């Protein structure tokens, strides 16, 4: 086994996903701690251009596996097994993305590596990998020691800075003889769900509502606020799951990524999946009754208070009449 690190890029429909660059940073740190090289791989799609994008400072080698246009977990598993057999990296680092969830556990199992997912921090010393990760829906953080390598770990997006600069990695094609019989799933296509009237991605000012609104009828309150301030209404996942707002209003990992000038989060606790979709907003303002709500960690302005008191007062500030809910 080498002390190398292999990171696996995430891409979709021709675009490298942001988390891929963050993986490079995480991988570089590990490589430095272990004294090894940083390898990256990009599988399927337009691998050459993706590899170039992946070529940032600190990357030693990039392996391209050209096979098919889009992600297929059977292809990924075969490619990564072959690549790992070839490189024998001490660490395989993948994103804890939806696709990561779809291949990483299988790769780890096939390679007989212990697998720890969703790391927010990694620390390697003296043969032990310490993974920091959350449990119980982000209520606690734990450190977990994985005693024996080689390791496979997935990391959470947004926890490492994206790798920067232009690198001088050696980009090589890695030939994988894909056993087509073992590819027993077929991606037939993609569908954008909940398009429609509004593109919250374009909005300059988003008023976003979460579980704190309690009941569907109370939505009137934030609708009025959006009306008097000229904001666009968006929401966290539970509101859409409940069918109170259409899918195209959902901000977060499985919804839209938004970057408005102002993101006003009302009654949103700030689960990581939500934060993933709005943390890049210019100014984040949070209103929540719970002073410990994680949303305050990323907020620029915070109001600890009941939305049913604050929002009507805010509506009045802008000359509106708060509806009775």
């Amino acid at each position: 086994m080498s002390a190398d690190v292999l990171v696996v890029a995430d891409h979709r429909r021709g675009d490298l996903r942001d988390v891929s660059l963050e993986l490079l940073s995480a991988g570089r740190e590990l490589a430095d701690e272990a004294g090894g090289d940083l390898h990256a791989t990009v599988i399927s799609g337009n691998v050459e251009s993706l590899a170039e994008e992946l070529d940032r400072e600190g990357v030693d080698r990039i392996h391209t596996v050209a096979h098919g246009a889009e992600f297929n977990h059977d292809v990924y598993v075969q490619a990564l097994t072959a690549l790992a057999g070839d490189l024998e990296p001490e660490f395989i680092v993948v994103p804890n993305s939806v696709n990561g969830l779809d291949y990483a556990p299988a790769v780890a199992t096939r390679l007989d590596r212990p697998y720890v997912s969703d790391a927010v921090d990694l620390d390697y010393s003296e043969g032990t990998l310490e993974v920091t990760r959350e449990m119980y829906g982000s209520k606690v953080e734990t450190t977990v020691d994985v005693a024996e390598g080689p390791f496979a770990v997935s990391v959470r997006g947004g926890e490492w800075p994206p790798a920067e600069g232009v690198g001088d990695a050696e980009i090589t094609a890695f030939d994988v003889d894909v056993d087509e019989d073992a590819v027993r799933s077929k991606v037939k296509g993609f569908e954008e769900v909940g398009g429609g009237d509004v593109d919250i991605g374009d909005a300059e000012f988003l008023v976003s509502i979460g579980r704190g609104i309690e009941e569907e009828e109370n939505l009137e309150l934030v609708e009025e606020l959006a009306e008097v301030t000229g904001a666009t209404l968006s929401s966290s996942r539970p509101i859409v799951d409940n069918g109170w707002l259409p899918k195209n209003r959902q901000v977060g990992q499985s919804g839209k990524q938004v970057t408005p000038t102002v993101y006003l989060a009302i009654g949103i606790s700030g689960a990581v999946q939500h934060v993933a979709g709005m943390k890049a907003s210019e100014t984040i303002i949070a209103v929540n009754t719970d002073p410990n709500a994680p949303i305050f960690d990323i907020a620029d302005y915070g109001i600890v208070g009941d939305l049913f008191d604050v929002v009507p007062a805010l509506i009045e500030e802008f000359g509106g009449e708060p509806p009775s809910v």
Partner: protein
Amino acid sequence: MPSYMLAQAGVETRPTFWRIGHVGEALFYYLAAVAVAIFLYGVYQRFATYARGADDPRERLTDLPARVLTAAKLVASNEKQFDRDLYAGLMHTFILWGFLSLLIATTILGIDMDLWTLVLGQPSFFVGDFYLAYSFVADAMGLLFVVGVGMAIYRRYWVQYGRLWGKHTSTEDDLFVWTLFLLGVGGYLTEGVRILGTSATRDVSFETVSFVGWFVKDVLQAAGVTPQAAAAAYPVVWWSHALLALAFVASVPYAKPFHMLSSYANLVTRDEDAGKRLPRVPEDASPEEIGPSDIEDFTWKQLLDHDACTKCGRCSSACPAKAAGRPLDPRDVILDLKAYREGLEAGDREEVDIVADGGTSVVDAETMESCMSCMACMDACPVDIEHVTQFTEMNRRLTESGQMNKNVEEAVMNVFQKGNTFGDPDRKRPDWTDDLDFEVPDAREQSVEYLWYVGDYPSYDERNQHVARSLARVFEEAGVSYGILYEDEQNDGNDIRRVGEEGLYEMVAEENIEAFQSCDYENIVCTDPHSYNTFSNEYEQFGFEDGDSVYHYTQVVENLVNDGALGLTGTELNDTVTYHDPCHLGRYNGEFEAPREVVRATGVTLDEMPRNRSESFCCGGGGGGLWMDFDEETKPSEERIREALEDTDAGPDVDRFVVACPMCMTMYEDGRKTGGYEDDIEITDVTELLVEAIDAKEK
């Protein structure tokens, strides 16, 4: 024409079957026999249907003579028809007594003719003074009948009185009322024609006792009808009247007139505890067997309920869910079930679910979820239909088929997992006591006179915690020996049962009883009327023996006030207040005065809302309403506060809206905000008022 009758001229009587002839008479008897046969067959069919219904969990036929008598008294007095509606009471009394009188009169005549004179060969007693008195009474009562029917017609067609018209209003309603009218009027016409006709051959001056018939005769005469013409027309008039009467008799079991029997039978078999003490489900029943899936799953009494309905609409006009625009109309539910059964029997309806989500069932899930279990419908029903029992059983079906309302499901799961609807840990249950400057005694550790069951809302809900602390202060102040169960208390289950989660109700009831039994106490006192109801009426079904020693706190506090234990002079406060009767305390359990006594003892002026005591209007929180969202045009709580501020004597000068139930407190605090009444009125619990009075006294 039988000459012997005219030969009797000079004796006061009337010729029966005058100008009808022997053939006609025989035909009449034949048709009468046919009509009675059709009647009897129909009645048999109806009752055979009930006999096929499922067993009813209640004993409804024990002590039958007393039941028959009580029901007869109810019918005779028409007290249920007079309830909330003088006009309808008079109308029904006139029709009922008029109809019965005419029925009796005809029966007497029948006895004289067919039994006394024909079979026994005795001289007729239908002569002389008897005849005169008979005729007078029959005419007078008949007039009452016609007036009653006229009132019905006026209200139904002229006024277009709202509650009389509904989804199931149909031709049978028109036929019923018009047939009665024609029978009444036709009787007088027949009489008038007969008097005029017979006046040709004899002196009819004695017939003035039949004053209405005489009047008709006068009118006919004035209109130029000669006695000869009247005599000639008589058979036609008579036959019309006779045929209509016979047709009516035959039709009784097939349409609305059947209520004369079914509604009476329903009163005979009624359960006075219905609604406040719901039936258990068999211990070994599987989920599929709980609640009605098919029409056969309804008990015979419930099928009778459906047939007893006269479509009067009193239930629906009293229903707060309907008033708030929720999709529930209690009359329609009962009649939908009836129509479904009749449709199945006639083969023109497909079998569907009795109750389900999705709109294809007889009753929609949303309709059942709308019910607040406030019992207003049952209180208003003149024929004692047990809506709430049936509604609860349909809720049970929804629960067991996994179709419980999502919001209710959350509350119910909280009770299952945490023992309270809030989903808070049980160790936090006694947290409300922290702010008191005395220790609330632990009934698990010391023997107490009053075991105080605090309840979910007073334990966990901030607003109601203040009520709990107030009551604790009252008990302390009065030196009452009391104690609470601390974390061993669980949700009382009353509303869990009413939303149809019987299995969970069984669980909490058993565990609460166990907690009670581990304590040494004399009485149980409840903050919440819902607890009070289920402990005193229902826990008995699970082996609880102290149901009679359960009190609502207002009852205990009333005694403290009367005994002077709180040292109030009755001058401490001078606000003007109104009092809202909680359904579970008032209508359910008949306690109207204790809370009012306590309220008055503080010195406030108590101004009643028009809908008070048994006519109280639900806050909207019962039957799980507290846990659900509804699209309501005016929330029941908002409407009720409006009533307090507009329909009381003091009107806008009413300072406080006094409640005696934590659920009411929550609903009205909400209604006060959403209805925009925050500056107009305060919501205060009886015990909070009392504490204010104590504080005022101490100053």
